[in-house]
């Protein structure tokens, strides 16, 4: 019989909370983390609002008892904090008791340091210690070392869909018996590289983003990290543990339409949702809640909405984008939102789509705008899409 994959631990850090408890509290109190930036060193700092974690690099190092002179990118520190919480949350004390892997994702790795020191790298030797932390895999190894993981480490980078893909890959490694446990997720820290990139594409909103609203005019950038602990059912049974939810479906498809834009038919998103549903063995009516990618850009929300209508017809399950809370955390978005889905299942709650007022005329669908607590949340579908046409979907379920 094939192994089942369950989620036994969650860990996250973002602008709405330093851990799961604070995050849930913000979600339940409609408290957005988006505001003016304190730490970002950019000429555009005051032009936009961000989902920024209100801690400096040095404060993050202190939280992890890392000496100030040691070279850690902000990306690595955020990943370390969230991954450690996930492992503790899963009640794992002996990490090497079973074959355990760490899979992470990031879009720009240690760019938060490289962009500050790039001129130094080229002209002097003062910041040489940060050269190797530019690598996307650097933060993964920093976390693996912190947790003592040796069996398997790797890193994925598929733009904004990155971290959902680590959860998918981790589940497959467990199902095939290559590993017993995987800590999977992703991280990105705010950087002026991405800020300027998205700014030149003119898809940043200067005000709070309004996903799925007719008047939406772009996304807010955020930062954060999110990791889940995946374990095989036989290991959980052996340990006498209880799981938070089960990972039932997943799929990855490519839109193959444009390097950055989504297709007018939402083909990649349609395929990802359809294939994930098929693998889960669930009917479309079984989905209690969809955490949409919903960035707040004109293109994404329209294309995703069209794809949802193609999959679900006129009976689209309750859905919301939580990017009004956190901003778009890029390589961390998929795993942070999977965590929100797990919290929705655990607390039978749907978290609202902040800042929504007007329905998009073309598609006529409305996200949930209030906290819903009076119904059972059995199955959550979560979407994550990215540049390069990468579209991925996960489905998690109540046990």
């Amino acid at each position, binding site marked *: 019989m094939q192994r089942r994959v369950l989620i036994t631990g969650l860990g996250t850090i973002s602008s709405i909370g330093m851990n799961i408890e604070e995050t849930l509290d913000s979600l339940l109190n409609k408290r957005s983390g988006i505001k003016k930036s304190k730490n970002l060193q950019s000429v555009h700092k005051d032009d936009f609002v961000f989902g920024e974690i209100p801690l400096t690099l040095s404060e993050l190092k202190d939280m992890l008892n890392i000496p100030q002179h040691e070279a850690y990118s902000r990306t690595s520190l955020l990943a370390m904090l969230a991954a450690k919480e996930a492992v503790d949350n899963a009640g794992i004390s002996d990490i090497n008791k079973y074959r355990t892997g760490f899979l992470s994702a990031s879009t720009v790795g240690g760019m938060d340091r490289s962009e500050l020191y790039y001129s130094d790298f080229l002209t002097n030797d003062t910041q040489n210690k940060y050269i190797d932390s530019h690598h996307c895999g650097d933060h993964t190894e920093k976390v693996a070392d912190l947790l003592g993981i040796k069996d398997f480490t790797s890193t994925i980078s598929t*733009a904004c869909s990155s971290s959902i893909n680590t959860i998918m890959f981790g589940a497959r490694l467990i*199902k095939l018996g*290559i590993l017993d446990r995987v800590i999977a997720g992703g991280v990105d820290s705010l950087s002026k590289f991405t800020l300027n*990139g998205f700014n030149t594409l003119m898809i940043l909103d200067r005000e709070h983003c309004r996903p799925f609203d007719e008047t939406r005019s772009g996304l807010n950038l955020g930062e954060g990290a999110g990791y889940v602990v995946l374990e095989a059912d036989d290991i959980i049974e052996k340990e006498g543990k209880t799981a938070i939810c089960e990972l039932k479906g997943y799929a*990855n498809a*490519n839109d193959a339409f444009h390097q950055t834009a989504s297709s007018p038919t939402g*083909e990649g998103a349609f395929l990802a949702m359809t294939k994930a549903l098929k693998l889960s063995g669930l009917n479309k009516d079984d989905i209690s809640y969809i955490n949409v990618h919903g960035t707040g850009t004109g293109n994404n929300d329209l294309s995703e909405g069209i794809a949802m209508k193609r999959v679900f017809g006129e009976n689209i399950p309750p859905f919301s984008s939580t990017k009004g809370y956190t901003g778009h955390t890029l390589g961390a978005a998929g795993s942070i939102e999977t965590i929100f889905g797990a919290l929705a299942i655990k607390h039978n709650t749907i978290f609202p789509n902040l800042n929504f007022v007007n329905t998009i005329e073309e598609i006529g669908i409305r996200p949930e705008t209030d906290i819903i607590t009076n119904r059972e949340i059995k199955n959550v579908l979560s979407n994550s899409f990215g*540049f390069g046409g990468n579209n991925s979907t996960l489905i998690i379920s109540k046990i």
Partner: protein
Amino acid sequence: MINSVYINGLGAISPQETFSADSFLKNIIDYNQKYLEIIPPVYKEYIDPKALRRMSKIVRMGVASGFMALKQANIEIPDAINTGTGLGCQADTEKFLQTMIDNDETLLNPSSFIQSTHNTIGGQIALAIGCNNYNMAYVHRTFSFETALLDSMMMITEGTAKNVLVGGVDEITEESYYIRAKIGHLKNEAEQSSNILNSKTIGALCGEGAAFAVVSDSKTETSYCKIDGVSMFYKPVDTLEIAAKITSFLQEHNLTPQDIDFVISGFNGDIEYDGIYRMINEKIFEHSGLGMYKNLCGEYDTSSAFATWMAANILKFKEIPSEIIIKKPLNKVKRVLIYNQFHNVNHSIILMSEC
């Protein structure tokens, strides 16, 4: 356990003449440079000229070598595209970063940002052939290609794919070479590529390249060989642990080190770390032949994709170019193990056999 897969098509762009399918490393070029750069094919034979104009070097060589592999395997649309790249689109990243610094974050063009993401190569291949299937980009140092390969083999084992396009690609730029050379990762001075085994300095002879393969669940007329397994191990404590990991990997495939006819090792000319290959060879592979490949392509995160291309050709053509032989194999080469590591941190092995 993961099933073996067949390599049914290959494409490689490297510092050697590697894009002809009919011959195998006939005229090996001996370089005396700080880093080895690819010999570009006539790209417009592979890529639409309109798309080509917008592509950086890494995207060009990735897309073109991907197309070569698909064509050889007679596959139009693969069931998945899995790309490994260590540092991704460096030229576009540097261009955007430098302009951002020079212009104080104004007057920026989005195109280099758009093409700077690590999944650009896989995304561009999908876009060009209209492939809506699974598409992944692995970006973990010298595990990048290996993880992409593992994923591909897993898909074939799961039955979710029959033909997967998998490859590794990395580019070198003057800036990134300079930055990595000054921290000792790469050689600071020009080095004779044929002489890396006798190098007296630290740092690797740097290179770049792209190599893609179509791996499939069944043998066809175009099959080169089989890939039987891939494994990675992180920060082993000593060579004993490395030897134990390799031996137990072989055991899982019902093999012993004596069953390996030829070991292709990742010697890169760094006097600090090349000794590991010698020690492993003496410890467990005393009966096997020993070879190298970075004297042809240089060191880069996904160089094992080039090694896979080379091993597949050795198994197909039944000949080993003398330039890569360190110790001659005693037997006809039926089974090859690629062993690569960087700075004794990321170690990987790929097991291949004739079919």
